[in-house]
């Protein structure tokens, strides 16, 4: 590949409750490399380490081993709020990505200042409003006329769409989507996925998208990885990925996980 490397995870280890009976190794020497422009869908059973991987990249806590290199810079020891400059994030819980008690325009203004030093300049300037109105109208959800409405009054789908907009606003080096459509009804989920596709292709973003839905994992992105016990066990891309079916995936999963996790088939399908 001639595209430059955007993310390199090397030997990432993350243990929860170390030294107790509840010790769990969530990431067990995880290696993953993403090239610029990769749109990777991530699947795997419960406890496979999918969300933990995104949190390790985002710096929610320190990893117990390994390194995170983003666009050539080692960010392993950078605190979460400093990495935010390079990352866009959308969470599974629609409540988590926005500030409910603040207006739509205030949320957007926060996102447009992501990673910038906070000063005593106005939190939002007049000229920004027109820009936000235009951005919101592209979503096609009618939010452009509700700039001063509190985000808490929006539906889950509207909040996720807004969070996506905020995440992509400053053109992050990497977009992290943690099952961002799982809490939505099928119709809204499809709409949010459509917006996701559009934003990623328009801005040529590199993205990691976790999903529980195998069909979505196959239909979106240029590459698909499957995680199991804190590592990547399947990695398909290009033509091979385009030809994948859900049956193929289940077959691969059973084989790669040693056949012992057939219980997870129900979760994955």
């Amino acid at each position, binding site marked *: 590949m001639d595209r430059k490397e955007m993310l390199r995870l090397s030997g990432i280890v993350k243990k929860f409750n170390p030294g107790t009976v509840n010790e769990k190794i969530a990431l067990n020497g995880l290696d993953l490399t993403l090239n610029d422009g990769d749109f990777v869908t991530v699947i795997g059973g419960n406890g496979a380490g999918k969300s933990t991987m995104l949190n390790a990249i985002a710096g929610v806590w320190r990893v117990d081993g390994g390194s995170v290199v983003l666009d050539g810079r080692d960010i392993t020891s950078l605190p*979460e*709020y400093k990495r935010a400059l390079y990352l866009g994030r959308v969470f599974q819980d629609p409540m*988590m990505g926005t500030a409910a008690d603040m207006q739509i325009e205030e949320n957007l203004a*926060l996102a447009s200042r992501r990673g910038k030093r906070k000063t005593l*300049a106005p939190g*939002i300037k007049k000229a920004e409003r027109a820009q936000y109105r235009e951005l919101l109208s592209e979503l096609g959800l009618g939010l452009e006329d509700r700039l001063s409405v509190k985000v808490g009054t929006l539906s889950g789908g509207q909040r996720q769409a807004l969070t996506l907009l905020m995440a992509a606003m400053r053109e992050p080096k990497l977009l992290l989507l943690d099952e961002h459509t799982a809490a939505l009804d099928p119709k809204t989920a499809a709409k949010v996925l459509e917006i996701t596709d559009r934003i990623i292709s328009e801005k040529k973003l590199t993205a990691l998208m976790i999903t529980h839905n195998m069909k979505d994992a196959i239909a979106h992105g240029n590459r698909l990885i499957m995680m199991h016990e804190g590592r990547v066990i399947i990695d398909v891309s290009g033509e091979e990925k385009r030809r994948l079916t859900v049956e193929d995936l289940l077959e691969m999963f059973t084989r790669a996980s040693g056949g012992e996790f057939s219980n997870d088939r129900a979760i994955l399908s």
Partner: protein
Amino acid sequence: MGNFLGSMPGAVAQGLIWGIMAVGVYITFRILDIADLTVDGSVCTGAAVCAVLIVNGVNVWLAMLAALVAGIVAGCVTWFFHVILGIPAILAGILTQLMLWSANLKIMGGANVAVSARQFKGIFVTQMDIGGSLIWLFAGAAITVGLLYLFFGTELGCAIRATGCNGAMSRAQGINTNVMKLIGLALSNGIVALAGAVLCQYQGFSDINMGKGAIVTGLASVIIGEAVVRKIGKNFALKLTGVFVGSVIYWMVYQTVVFFKIDTDLLKMLSALLVALFLGIPYLKKQLGQRKTRGGAANG
């Protein structure tokens, strides 16, 4: 009855002074979403610093500035306990409060310090001249509301509001939430100490017990104020004004209780119950709502 009405301007003055304190409580409780019990100590710290400095011949304005700084320091201590040492916010506040009890006694060199307006001519807010004091206090309240309205509209102010509203989101948006909590706690306690500094001038003394239950008084004012202005609008300046309105109502009720010789010992009990009731209602409503939907789902 004339005497009763005559006591009202004093109640309004008290209400406005405690209103400044309640605005400090509003910043931590409503904006930062932290119940900060430091205030029970920092009211007196502000009063103690101010009184001692005035008695020692320091300019009244400088004494008030020093009180503000003392409050800011108290807020920083609570922040250190809470954010750096990971102690739950409520306990962190109680620890600082206890430290301040000793600090206040040391600052005053005893349990109280007298600062009579008769003796110290620089004092401009005093119960010996309630009319003149009210002009200063109304101006002070207006300036407090105006400045805080402007501040919480800035980038920094918005970042503090976002921190209180959703910490995870704030960090994902590159906000250093620890620093925002520091600014919020420092600002809040600075304002509370400033209220203490005004109060000691008004009543003519500072006293080790003067901040006792301040958090509850403050919360009661915040809650009463919210109930009053909710119908009018949602503007932030209006909400802050509501805190002053709530505080004035609180002290008018207090004055009424005093005037009709109802047992004032019960007042703190009533304030606490009022706060518990108003904080509990939204929760109970939610519980009841959930039960209803659960029942509905079972039927359907």
